[in-house]
């Protein structure tokens, strides 16, 4: 047994069934060992997408996603995937090949200091010096990636370590001995009782949920608590889907791209529970103003997030699932029916319908139609740009459904590989990637991967021949002086679909769009639906 075999046996022991990646000599011993097992290896077409695919896999399965690439350019290409996962706290195990140990630091062919380069956006990284450490390192890496505030862990393995003989291989069992790393998952009971008391008195309580709810799988506990105590809920972009969109207690997404009702709810609440959310700039643009005069209860598994952007009245460090399960044992019985009525009236009054040119598809209406037509457990993956904001504001997510997007990093090209990863985690679910013509072209090389591994994704491309969101910014900031935002020379997606043997659907305006959409969603395999929207369409409600 050599180091590569030890890596693969350790990965199998952690329950790994799929690895996304790319080959190269420095990682070849590893792929050779993988080939001797039942692990499915998926060869993406550029390393960045191995990271995104692993992210989609992780968000769908709840297990860390695994990706492996070669040294130098392979490792450096993966960095965007790692940083994207880090910004959204997605657990990944990222394995990189490295040049031979005694050549490290001498700038040999395909050498890059990837542990150094990735330092600021991994949860932890290892440079493996001796193959005998592999079982321990892999076990620790999974533990670190998937506990506490989740995130990517990088394991850099020199070629010679992969080939090094491991005479006495033993799987690493039991608790990793990480004395310094003990994430707090149980919320402090006294603090929870204190919060229950506060909620009892609150007249206008509100829960604002972030991605932490999904990451700790707290959806059910949240829902039980909310239904019992009748406390209205809003979410951040990362928290979309914490409650079904049509749940009576759900009042939309907050933030500068969010719903008016949700933002009003934030401003007018007297007691605000932020859960699994960072109070980041995109969700709460001016925290001091929004939170003035409120009781703020901030609950997060990462103690460093509490007090980073705002100083809470009551902090609780812990995992959202455990905290809500503890809350369920408390009786708050606050009286805030008037508040619910107020928010319901807002929701009625602020139907954010905007007019759209009849010559084009109305993207808002289309997103609603699409998400309604998807199965309940469908996976909606939004890319980045106007498409993301149309999606976030209008997608209808039902119980069992999943909404994914690159929230923190805002990485274009995320949706297709992430949807591919989602399908590989659960082939029975329909995954739809919604992108713009810009983001589509950032990842369109993965069409081949979808074909090769039978990972069907339904791809919606909003076509406007612009990098729409930046064009919109230039419209307001530079009075329509457009620079670097016009997409010319675009591929004919019909011909492109033919080239990849994919079905192609097209909607130029709203006429008959529902039928086209249904045909698209019910077609076999990967399919592309090109949706023409007004190039001058704005997301901002002005």
């Amino acid at each position, binding site marked *: 047994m050599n180091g590569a075999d030890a890596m693969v046996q350790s990965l199998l022991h952690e329950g790994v069934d799929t690895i996304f990646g790319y080959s190269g000599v420095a990682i070849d011993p590893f792929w050779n060992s993988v080939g001797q097992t039942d692990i499915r290896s998926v060869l993406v077409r550029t390393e960045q997408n191995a990271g995104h695919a692993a992210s989609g896999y992780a968000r769908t399965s709840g297990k860390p996603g695994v990706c492996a690439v070669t040294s130098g350019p392979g490792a450096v290409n993966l960095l965007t995937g790692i940083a994207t996962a880090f910004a959204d706290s997605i657990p990944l195990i990222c394995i990189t090949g490295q040049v031979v140990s005694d050549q490290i630091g001498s700038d040999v062919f395909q050498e890059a200091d990837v*542990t*150094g380069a990735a*330092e*600021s956006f991994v*949860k*932890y990284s290892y*440079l493996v010096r001796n193959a005998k450490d592999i079982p321990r390192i892999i076990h620790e890496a999974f533990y*670190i990636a998937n506990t506490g505030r989740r995130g990517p862990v990088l394991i850099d393995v020199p070629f010679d370590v992969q080939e090094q003989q491991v005479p006495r291989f033993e799987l690493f069992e039991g608790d990793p001995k*990480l*004395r*310094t*790393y003990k994430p707090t998952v149980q919320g402090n009971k006294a603090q929870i009782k204190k919060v229950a008391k506060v909620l009892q008195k609150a007249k206008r309580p509100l829960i604002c949920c972030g991605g932490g709810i999904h990451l700790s799988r707290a959806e059910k506990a949240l829902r039980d608590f909310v239904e019992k105590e009748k406390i209205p809920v809003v979410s951040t972009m990362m928290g979309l889907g914490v409650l079904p969109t049509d749940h009576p207690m759900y009042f939309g997404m907050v933030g500068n791209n969010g719903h008016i009702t949700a933002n009003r709810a934030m401003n007018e609440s007297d007691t605000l529970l932020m859960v699994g959310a960072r109070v980041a700039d995109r969700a709460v643009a001016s925290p001091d103003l929004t939170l003035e005069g409120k009781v703020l209860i901030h609950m997060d598994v*990462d*103690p*460093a997030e509490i*007090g*980073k952007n705002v*100083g809470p009245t009551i902090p609780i460090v812990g995992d959202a699932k455990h905290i809500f399960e503890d809350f369920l044992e408390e009786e708050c019985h606050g009286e805030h029916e008037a508040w619910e009525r107020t928010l319901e009236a807002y929701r009625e009054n602020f139907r954010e319908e905007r007019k759209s040119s009849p010559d084009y598809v109305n993207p808002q209406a289309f997103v609603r139609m699409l998400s309604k037509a998807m199965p309940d457990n469908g996976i909606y993956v939004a890319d980045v740009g106007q498409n993301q904001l149309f999606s976030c504001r209008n997608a209808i997510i039902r119980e069992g459904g999943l909404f994914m997007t690159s929230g923190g990093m805002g990485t274009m090209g995320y949706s297709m590989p992430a949807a591919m990863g989602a399908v590989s985690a659960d082939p029975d679910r329909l995954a739809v990637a919604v992108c713009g013509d810009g983001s589509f072209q950032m990842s369109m090389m993965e069409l081949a991967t979808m074909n090769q591994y039978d990972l069907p994704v339904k791809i919606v491309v909003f076509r406007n021949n612009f990098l729409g969101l930046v064009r919109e910014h230039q419209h307001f900031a530079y009075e329509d002086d457009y620079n670097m935002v016009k997409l010319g020379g675009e591929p004919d997606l019909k011909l492109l679909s033919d080239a990849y043997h994919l079905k192609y659907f097209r909607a130029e305006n709203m006429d008959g769009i529902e039928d086209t959409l249904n045909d698209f969603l019910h077609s076999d395999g990967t399919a592309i639906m090109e949706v023409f929207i007004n190039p001058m369409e704005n997301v901002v409600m002005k």
Partner: protein
Amino acid sequence: MQKRVFQLLVDNTSGVLSRIAGLFSRRGYNIDSITAGVTADPRFTRITIVTDGDDEILEQIEKQLAKLIDVRDIRTLEPENSVYRELCMIKVEVDSHARPGIIAMADVFRANVVDVAPDALIIEVTGNQSKVDAFINLLADYRILEIARTGIAGLQRGTEGVIWFD
């Protein structure tokens, strides 16, 4: 803005110092000084960092450092129950004429002359930062050629808070 001295006990892994220094630079925190050295147990390194910031920044520094997986322990060394020391070497231009005067001054500060050249001296002074600063100020009339300061190392007084490892 206030000054604070953090003491860290970290795993002696490769790259641990760069992880810590990198955290300060990328989050825009100041480092006044940083010293590191292995402890009695070679598995661990003790690091003393002097930094400054307002209360929120200092709280973030402590929390972000605590998040690093190599960091075993982090605490603030409060001036009233801690001992700080810094070593400083000062090379002063001095001829045989002025030499006795400067040596007398060094004696008052319990500083040692560690090198004598025909036209210069190296004086080593150890103490807390204010003592070192005071000594340097005292040399204002001379021409200081070079200074090398270690930054402070510190320990908490007494046995309370000592971490024992098996």
